């Protein structure tokens, strides 16, 4: 699966879709392949304040539990509640299965995120 050029990426295998002062966050195709079948996603409450690199939830496959790390600092303004009942969409459509939307607290942080080419190199 190709990594969309419109997204930014982290070394922890999250993707970020930036739009104004909002960042939509999910996990990459590489991450979902490593996890295997996703059966549970635990997300924060709307209103939670996150720092960059902080855990914002957990994702569980049949075999393992992994932390989800926020690529940016800010306030959680939306969560994807549909993942509660359909966690398997993270496997079938990882780059479409957003998890949280963060209102950026420190927009300058986003400069250090990887672009699609850099991320593709990282996971090659």
């Amino acid at each position, binding site marked *: 699966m190709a990594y969309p050029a419109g997204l930014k990426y982290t070394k922890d295998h999250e993707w970020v879709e930036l739009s104004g002062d909002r960042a939509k966050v999910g996990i990459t195709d590489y991450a979902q392949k490593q996890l*295997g079948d996703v*059966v549970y996603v635990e997300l924060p409450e709307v209103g939670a304040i996150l720092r960059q690199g902080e855990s914002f939830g*957990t994702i569980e496959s049949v075999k393992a539990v992994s932390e989800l790390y926020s690529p940016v600092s800010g306030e959680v303004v939306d969560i994807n509640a549909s993942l509660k009942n359909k966690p*398997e969409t993270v*496997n079938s459509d990882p780059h479409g299965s957003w998890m949280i939307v963060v209102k950026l607290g420190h927009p300058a942080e986003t400069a250090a995120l990887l672009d699609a080419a850099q991320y593709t190199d990282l*996971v090659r």
Partner: protein
Amino acid sequence: MEPVTDTSLKKTPLHARHRAAGAKMVPFGGWDMPLEYSGIVDEHMAVRTRAGLFDVSHMGEIEIAGTDALAGVQRISSNDASALQVGQAQYSALLTARGTFVDDLLVYRLAPQHFLLVVNAANTEKDFAWIDNEIKTAGDVVAVDASSRYALLSVQGPAALDVLGSLTEIDLPGMKYYRFAHGEVANVRATVSRTGYTGENGFEVFVPPQSAERVWQAILSAGQAVDLIPAGLGARDTLRLEASMRLYGQDIDDTTTPLEAGLEWIVGWKKGDFNGAAALREQKSQGPSRKLVGFEMLDPGIARHGHEVFINGETCGRVTSGTQTPFLKKAIGMAYLPIAYAAPGTEIGVDIRSRRARARVVPMPFYRRP
């Protein structure tokens, strides 16, 4: 990331097949084994609805023979091996003097005084050393670690009979549960038993290691018609847990007894003395203080091995196994609870990474084959 192969790990005769098929490999009990091929959920569902093929060649095989072989087996194994006819197998346990598990195993009666024990991979060396020592006083009997002489394939699922039946003259439809027979599978000398670790109808096939690839390929080919797929240890674990089968190292170990684990039916009370018998009789007369129970999560979250269990705010045990089951689509698990709280319907709390989630004790098995 480069796949790393730990050269200290043992490989089954089918290792190259697993790698070539793109299976995700993991170390397990000292072996480099396939965790999953197409995915745990896919493989689990295949076994419940069609058929799956497992390589379980990592399991240990120990043979016991001699004119006093029955006496030797009766000493080391908790179940009553005298009840076995030749061609029959039974689930049993090796027990310490305290009545706790050294291992759980299957005992096959190959001949009146010749038995085959199939033990957990990680325990094979420990079990062999222990058995070798324990049977010395039983008379004319020897134990041999024959693990390298067997590859073991497991065909499981409602279509397993049709798939395997097309490759052998052995009367599989007439084979009862926990019976076995010798013959040929795909023109390879084989022993086939109607056993498994999935809660599904299925067969296990013992073949010489050098012929394992041929039989594996023949089963995959014959299985195409029913969409049989290869399955790994991940699905093996979720299947056995859904069927409430205990896993050594998690649900049973050298701190727990068959009575506590709900396995009193593998204790041969009437057969006289055996390892651990005195301790078990003592525990039976007092009644065990705790019991292995099954539970279902009521709150969101998945209980995992090691999570603490609470009742009325007090820690009272730990989860031994837990997962989200692909077929029942529930988060389930097992835990040892004080007898007073072991009845189905009891509400318990499970600490899932510092969050207290409610669960309820339910009867086992979670899944029973229709």
